[in-house]
Structures are given as C-alpha cells and as structure tokens.
C-alpha cells in the first residue's frame, strides 16, 4: 500500500514548481485544431507564438489552450501534412478559436519547416515516434497488407521477434511490457494470423504514436513502451471512403456525417481469404485453413462547442483449422482435428468537455475482452471396430473494465498541467482445460481443470504531471503516478516518478534526458521462443508478484537545414525485475494441462543501448536511417545456474534504412532495408550415445542420442537482413483516386532464420549440426486501392 503521506508530499512538491513567468493579467485562447476538409480534429498540431518563443501542442483530441499576457499575438499553427496557418489576434478576453488546417498538396514551406523544428526541438518528451498514416501506407509490406505495427519495427530499438511476426520487443523489453492502446483501451493480443499481421486496420486509423522511453505519468501498467493507436473520428462534412483488394485480404472503410458538422461516423472492415485460397490445394485427407476478420467503428457527436461524445468499438477474430483423416469422406479410421481461435473486442464511450477555457476533461469508460480457445480431437477405431474418442480443449479469457478521467490545464504557455485517475477492473480466467475420453467399454472421462479459477483484481492509479519552462533554455516534464493493485490475496502499491528535461543547447540543438519508474501487474506467460496467441495473460497472483523496472535515457536532438533533417542520438539503461517464465523443461503446449502456476519462476533483466535516428521529413525524397547497438540480459535462479544470460531477443546491431521517393504526383517508390545481427540461441554443444532407460527399457544395442547443452543463449543465429521495395501508381478517376501498388518482400531472397534448432538426422547421421527454418522468402505482392 502506498503511504498516503508520501504521496501527498510528492504531489505537493510537484505542483509547487513555479514557471519562470510571473503571474499577471492574462487571457486564454483555446479551442481545437481541425482538418478543414473533414472536420476531424488534429492531435499534435503545433500552436506557436514566435514572439515569446512559446506555444502549445494540441492534445490527443485536438484541443489546445494558451494563456498569455499579450493583447496582440500572432499564432503560427502547423502540423506535418497540412498547410501551415497564421492567425493575427487582438484579444481582450478569453477566446475560443477553432483553427482549421488544410491538408498539404505541395511540399516544402518555410513557415512549416520552422514550426516543425520548434515542435520537435522544444518538446520535453523524448524517445517518441509518430509516423503519419499516409507515409505508412506507401511503405513496402508483406503481401500488400499495410501494417502499422510492422512499420514500427523499422524504428530503432524495436524488434519484431521471429521473422514475419508483428510482435514488438522494445529496448530489451518483452512483448507483454508494451502498453498497446486503441482509443485509450488496452489491447492484449494485437496479432492476426499468428502475428503475421496486426489487428490495426490502417484505413480506420488516424494516428499511431510510439513512446519507448521517458513514459509520461499519464500512462502506466507496462514497463517498456506505449503504443497509442487513435481511430479516425469520421468526416463531418462529406461521405468518403476507401477500399482495397490485396493478395490475401480486402478492406473497406466508409466515413461521413450523420448530422453535418455535428455528428459523424467511420466504419471499416477487413476479411482475409487465405483459407479460401488454400482450398484448391488441399483435397483428400487434409484440411487446413487460417482466416481473420475485423471491424472498426466509431461515431461522435458535438453536443456543444464545449462537449463532444464518442463511441468506438473494435471486434476481430482469427480462426485456424487443421484436420486429417485416414479415410477421406467418411468417419471411419483415424481422424485428427485441431482448431484454434482468438478474438479481441473493445468498446468505449468518451466524453470530452472544456471547462472554462483552460481545463480540458476527457472521461472514458470502456471494456476490453481477449479470449482464445483451442480444441484438439482425435478419433480412432480400435481393432474391434469400436470408437475411441479423445478431445481436449483449452481456453483463456480476459475481461477488463476501464474508467478514467484525464484533466489538462494550461495556466500559461510555459506551464501545462495534467492529472487524472484511472481504474481497471480485471477478470482473468487463464488456462482452463477440458478433457474428454470416450472409449468403448469404459466409463467416459470428463475432466475440467482451471488451476487458478477466475481471478478478479483491481488496478487504480492517480497521476499528475507538469510540463514547465523553468528557464528560457530549460523545460521539464515532472510527473508522478501512484498505483494500487488489489488481487485475491494480495495488495501492492507503487509510487512511480517520471521526470524528463529538455535543455536547449543551441538554436537547433537540444539535450533531453528522462527517468521513469513503472510497475506492471499483468504478465504474459510464454512457453518458448515464439509468442503465440495461446500464451497466457495472467494477473499478479499468489507466488507471482508484479513486474517493476526503471529506465534512464538521455540524448541529443539536432535539426539541420531549417528542420528538413533531424538527427537524434539516444542512450538508455533499463532494469526490470519480476517477469516470469516457465521453469526449465516446461513448455507451453504441455504445461497448459498441468498446474502451470507451479511451473513458473521469476527473474530480472537489464538492457542498455544506444540509438541513432536520422530523418528527412520533407521534399520528394523522405525517409530515415536508424541504428541501434543494444545488449539485453536476463537472470533467473533456475536457468543457467543462476548466472545472467543473453535475452532471446538480444540483438547487438540493428539497422534500418527507409526511403520514399515521389517520382511524380502519380508515382512513388519506396524501399526499406533492415539488418539485425543474429539472435541468441540456446543449443547443444556436445552429444553422446547413451542408453535409454532402465530394465527392459534399456538396451545397449539401440543407441539413445543424448545432447549436452552449454550455457544459455551463447550461440548466435545467422544475421537477418532483407530489402523490401514497392512502387505505387496513382490515378485520379472521376469518382475516386485509384492506387495500384506492386511490391516485393525480401527482394534478394535472403534465407533469414526464423528458428535454429539441432537437426535430428541428416545423411543417415544423427545430431551433427543445426538446421534453420526460413520463412517468407521473396514474396511478390500486388494490391489495388480506391479512395473517394
């Protein structure tokens, strides 16, 4: 439990920090920044007052507030992808100002460049990336499927795990340590098709933001990063939409006004036809299929100039089937069926209200559900012709109710305060199994097991953060988050300080540093080297405490040539403890049917690294170069003799080069090259011939091959690299803009390692080397898209 006294003192200390500007007669300009064509509100827009070299950034909902002591100001408003705007204002009293920005059609404008430079240079927040959706849409992708999550993997310190996966391992953290939010609600499994694609339909998304260090106090519950997906709001002025047909799936999106300028909606859906495409090749004894679909929906209504309500939802489902029959077309003989399905469902209601002119209130209630279920069934007829049937199913379910209130208050341009409260009620039902055995002549067996039963818990957090300009060249973001977790038998509390500074070293140079401490009350129990939908999400419970950690990061931000180029160099150190793993010898496929809590042990981890990120944002040629040097280790009492060992995703060198070139208004070429040094693998170092058991089970005549393993993760798989290219042809039709995209994934057909493992037998000899499984070699892709 957090001592109330400590919390009070900490909050008082934080709120007592005074900005450099003295109090005086002040007026407030506040309102929203909106897209002039659609009415959508624009988050992250820079509202800047050059005269005092200060300003504000519109929040996630497009709201800004500036309190100043000037009667006459010039506002410079800008955002990437929009024509910059300038407003001259004579202000006598508090004013509400809706600023509209027009999407940019021509590139390069000096005013915009200056503003962009100020935005990035002046922000205290470090280790943050936001890639415009339009830019993501033109990057080369697997099978023509635009994937926001995979684009994030091209950024420094963001690892994908195994080949093709949309998982994210950020700055040495684990997949479960990323707080993935969709319109403010947590997403537990962001993958479709076993991770080859993510659940986020680019057609429905307005914005994706990644914060991998210096996590602000308003976010909590995860150690490594925040990935914030925001859905479009829907066009308030006219109907618009898009559709696309790809190699394995199609998608469609429609948005438009429900009541013009007051209410709008957006709806989008995707459906893969991978299962249908397989069908012609699977005649006879085997059936195989994998499919997914998802639907996004969002609607909003502007009640008053101060009030707006939103409803948003997502539902997505994956299914996988494998079936094999020894005698096709009948129920006779042996038959084996394996089915696996998982689904995410999210729904939220949000109310944005502006109180006075300086206080913005965001209230959200929502529900998140993630569930998976698998079933294997085997049927056989015994030698008497009798039926033997065995069926085993496994399921897991998470239901979260989230309620939160976020308040933002900006007393003056140099001082911005946020505070709020968040509550999450968890209902976990992890890893329950059902087994049925029906054998002729025997009493049928039906067994249900739920090692933990239903686990209910409650997370509550209070936070406060203050971004303040202490000196002309010094800004600080100081925050604190106090969280409390109450489970069945345990209570935990945590005080999590978060501090970041921005020191303006020169006109175009800023030094940034941050410290953040976090606590995480949920875990993902992963069995092996690859994340699967059947990995168990479990809450903190008996014997499994919360995860905790801190990260220190520091870096230099440098802008060149009026902001056309930006270079960031950052270093970080992250310490984590309390994360869980299966004990040695256990594996997830079997452990589900055991009492898995007894098979878990906890460990600690350290990761450190240095990143370089150079970006060109403007002009016909845009793109970035990223490089990371990193080292990540783990330490578990029961592994490697208790000695530290390299994490499974420890990658020493990681680089990416992304280039987008606009050949003409109708043609664009993109390319991405990635390189990563080999992942650690834990493999045998020696082998010998032994006997396979005692008594009648032992027979010296039949050698039993035994391998002798060395220290954990000391070997390295071959390095990973590939080049993806794509070209996009646009044509304006009478009713829509049509884009044809051609692409090649892994253009030079590199056989990259997905898994490395001992080969069992080759050329008649056993256990003499290693085999590598490579997936996703050269893959051509074509897709066609219409947008109206």
């Amino acid at each position: 439990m957090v001592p109330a006294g400590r919390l009070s003192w900490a909050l008082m200390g934080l709120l007592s920090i005074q900005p450099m500007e003295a109090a005086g007669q002040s007026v407030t300009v506040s309102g929203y920044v909106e897209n002039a064509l659609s009415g959508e509100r624009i988050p992250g827009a820079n509202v800047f007052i050059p005269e005092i070299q200060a300003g504000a950034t519109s929040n996630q909902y497009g709201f800004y507030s500036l309190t100043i002591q000037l009667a006459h100001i010039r506002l410079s408003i800008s955002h990437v992808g929009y024509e910059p705007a300038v407003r001259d204002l004579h202000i006598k009293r508090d004013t509400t100002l809706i600023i509209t920005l027009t999407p940019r059609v021509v590139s390069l404008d000096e005013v915009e460049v200056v503003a962009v430079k100020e935005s990035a240079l002046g922000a205290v927040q470090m280790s943050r990336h936001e890639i415009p959706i339009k830019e993501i849409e033109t990057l080369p992708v697997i099978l023509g499927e635009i994937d926001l999550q995979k684009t994030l993997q091209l950024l420094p310190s963001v690892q994908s795990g195994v080949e093709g996966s949309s998982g994210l391992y950020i700055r040495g953290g684990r997949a479960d340590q990323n707080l993935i939010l969709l319109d403010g609600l947590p997403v537990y499994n962001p993958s479709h098709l076993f991770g080859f694609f993510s659940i986020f339909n680019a057609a429905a998304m307005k914005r994706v933001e990644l914060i991998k260090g210096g996590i602000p106090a308003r976010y909590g519950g995860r150690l490594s990063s925040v990935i914030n997906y925001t859905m479009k709001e829907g066009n308030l002025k006219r109907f618009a939409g898009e559709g696309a047909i790809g190699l394995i799936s199609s998608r469609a999106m429609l948005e438009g006004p429900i009541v013009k300028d007051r209410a709008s909606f957006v709806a989008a859906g995707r459906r893969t036809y991978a299962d249908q495409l397989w069908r012609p090749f699977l005649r006879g004894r085997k059936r195989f299929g994998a499919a997914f679909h998802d639907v996004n929906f969002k609607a909003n209504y502007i009640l008053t100039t101060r009030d707006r309500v939103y409803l948003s939802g997502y539902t997505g489902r994956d299914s996988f089937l494998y079936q094999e029959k020894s005698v096709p077309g009948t129920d006779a003989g042996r038959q084996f069926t394996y089915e696996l399905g998982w689904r995410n469902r999210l729904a939220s209601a949000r109310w944005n209200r502006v109180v006075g002119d300086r206080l913005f209130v965001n209230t959200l209630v929502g529900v998140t559900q993630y569930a998976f279920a698998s079933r294997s069934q085997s049927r056989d007829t015994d030698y008497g012709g009798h039926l033997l049937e065995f069926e085993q199913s496994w399921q897991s379910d998470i239901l979260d109710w989230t309620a939160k209130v976020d308040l933002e208050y900006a007393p003056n341009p140099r001082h911005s305060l946020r505070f709020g409260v968040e509550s999450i009620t968890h209902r976990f039902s992890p890893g329950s199994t059902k087994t049925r055995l029906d054998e002729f002549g025997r009493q049928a067996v039906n067994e249900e097991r739920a090692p933990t039963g239903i686990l209910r818990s409650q997370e509550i957090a209070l936070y406060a953060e203050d971004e303040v300009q202490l000196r002309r060249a010094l800004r600080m973001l100081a925050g604190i988050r106090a969280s409390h977790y109450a489970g069945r038998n345990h209570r935990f509390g945590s005080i999590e300080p978060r501090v970041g500074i921005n020191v303006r070293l020169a006109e175009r140079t800023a030094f940034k540093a941050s410290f953040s401490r976090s606590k995480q009350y949920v875990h993902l129990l992963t069995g092996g080297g690859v994340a699967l939908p059947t990995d168990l999400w479990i809450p903190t419970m008996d014997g499994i405490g919360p995860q905790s950690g801190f990260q220190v990061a520091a870096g230099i931000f440098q802008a060149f040539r009026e902001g056309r180029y930006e270079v960031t160099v950052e270093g970080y150190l992250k310490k984590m403890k309390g994360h869980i793993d299966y004990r040695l010898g256990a594996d997830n496929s079997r452990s589900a049917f055991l009492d898995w809590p007894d098979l878990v042990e906890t460990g600690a981890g350290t990761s450190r690294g240095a990143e370089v990120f150079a970006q060109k944002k403007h002009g016909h040629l845009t793109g970035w170069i990223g490089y990371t040097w990193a080292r990540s280790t783990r330490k578990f009492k029961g592994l490697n003799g208790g000695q530290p060992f390299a994490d499974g995703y420890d990658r020493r060198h990681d680089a990416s080069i992304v280039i987008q070139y606009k050949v003409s208004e109708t043609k664009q070429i993109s390319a991405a090259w990635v390189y990563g040094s080999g992942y650690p693998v834990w493999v045998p170092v020696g082998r010998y011939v032994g006997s396979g058991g005692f008594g009648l089970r032992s027979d010296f005549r039949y050698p039993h091959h035994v391998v002798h393993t060395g220290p954990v993760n000391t070997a390295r798989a071959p390095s990973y690299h590939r080049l993806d290219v794509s070209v996009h042809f646009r044509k304006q039709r009478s009713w829509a803009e049509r884009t044809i995209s051609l692409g090649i994934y892994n253009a030079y057909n590199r056989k990259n390692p997905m898994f490395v493992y001992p080969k069992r037998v080759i050329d008649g000899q056993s256990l003499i080397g290693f085999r590598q499984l490579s997936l996703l070699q050269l893959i051509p892709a074509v897709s066609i898209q219409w947008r109206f």
Partner: protein
Amino acid sequence: MRIRLAVIWGCALCGCETVVDLDVPGGYEPKLIIESQFSPDSLWTMRAGKSTAFGATADPRDLIVPDARIVIFGEGRFRDTLRHVGNGIYRTTNNLRPASGYVYRVQAAAPGLPSAEARGWAPPLESEWVEMQAAANSGSTESDPYTVRLRMADLPGGNYYSLTLYQVVTVCRNARGFIRIENGPGYSSRYQVNVFRSTWPSFRSYVEAVDDPTYPDLDNTYWTAFFSDELFEATTREFTITFTPTVTEPDNQLFMLVLTALSDDLFAYERSLELHDYYLFGPSLTTTRPVTVYTNVAGGLGIFAGYTSDTYRFDLEGNPWEEKDVSFGEPGPCR
C-alpha cells in the same frame, strides 16, 4: 489460375529448411561417458564412451572407448575391474552382481579423456504377491476382467518406484488386424507392455509428473506407472491393478508384472531424459528449451545408478511360470 495461385503461395508461405553453421563460442572438450543402470539381477555391466562436439561428424563407433580402465568399489572393498567385451561394453570377469542396499563407487579413466568417478546404489525393495482374481463377469466390457494385488513395504526416506505389466505375445497387428508371427524367421515370443488401470493415487504416467499431486491422470490408465512414496512414507501398503489382455493369444496367456525401486540418481536421470527426449524428438523442437540430461558422474557424463526389481510371472489363472519355459527372441515381420 490454380497454377498461378500455387506459385504465389509457394513463394509466400512455404518454409525452407537449410543447414547452418552456428558460432558457438568456446571449444568443446570431450568427456568420458560411463553408463551403468545396474540391478542385482544382472552382472556388473557398463558402457564407456566419449562425448563429442555437437557439430562434429564423428562415426558412432568412434565414440566408443575400448581402452578404459573401469574399477568398481563397494561393500567396503575393491570389487572388480571390468573388462571390455566389445562395442564399449565392459563386464565383470568374476561374475559379480551388485547387491541391493550397498553404495558402489566406480572409477574410470581412458587415454586422452579426463577421468571420471561416480557413486550409486540399488535401493532395496520388499514386495509380496497377494493374489490375482478373474472377475465373475469377465465377459463384461464395463470393467477389466483381471485384478492383481501386490503388497510393498516402503523403507524410510524418499523412494521412487515403477510398475509395468507385460504380456508374452506371439502375434502382431497389421492393417488387417492381429496375426500370429509365424512366417518370419525366428518365430518367437516377446514381451509387450500391457496397459493396466489403477486408482492408486500416487501413480503417474510420466516420470516428469511424479511428485506433482495435481498432474491429471485422465482415466488411471498406465503403460508404466511411476510413483514416489510421498503418500505412504515408511509404511506397508497394498495396491490393486486391473487389466484386460491386449492380445488374445492363441495359446496360454502369460504375463509379467515388474515392480522396481529406483535410486534417486536413476530417477533424476530418467526424468531429465524424458524431458530431453521431448525437447529433441518431440513436436515442438523450435519452441522448447534444451534440457540437459542429469548426470552423477564427476568429471564426465552419464549415469551410474541402480534399481531393484521384483518380478512376478503369472498366467490368467494366477499360476506362476518361468521364463525358461518360453521361447523368447527376435520377432519376425508382421505380414
């Protein structure tokens, strides 16, 4: 169209396995392997070999160590020096057998390899045949028609056991059903594990699951039941198993029940070997972590551990039989 789709899918999603060289830091120093799972039923026998680097393309015959000096100490004195009889097998020259309850020590040395030493014992076992019953309704399909009761006395301390039922069979199963093996060379009888059932709460189907009281045994059916004395420490207990003959033999139906007491070391070895095999030969090699097989051999690898078995041979009328009355050998092909 199908051809085009096949090309696309073939390019896209077909996995490709290639052989790779891994950079495994540090050299590998071969170790002497000594293996003996001894029991009072058999002469002192041991196998000596050596390990090799995982990626080395050594012929299995090159891993045999024919020139080791292996000496057994026990029962308070020198016991025997084992002699190489071929293929890395070393055997007593004095027809000596281990005895239950004594700790033995083995010292092994071979040219070019670090010497190795281990200690092990065959735990004593006290068991007693109680009876075998044929149920009155033996034609019923609702329950097993045959019941066997055994009694065993557990000694103080943690002990591990196994129980296996074998049937002597002269038939095999092919696609047409069960046939008698009589057209192959060397027609003979052989032992085949016969499934049995028991509600004895300590029984587990896998060595891995022993000491896990919550491991699900779905219908109390066992090929071999492994168990510890956790629930009956240092007491005498009687347990019951039931079974149905797997094969209806043309002639007399003969069975053998083997109760074995395993030493701690042997149990640890068996457990780790089970996990190791699951790692190496199981379905999920790519996602399961490597498992190191347990060894009690200092300076080397392998296992030097004992077990003691009580064997009960009986027919379906409960009469004992002896192995010398049956012709055992290699079975012929099942055609």
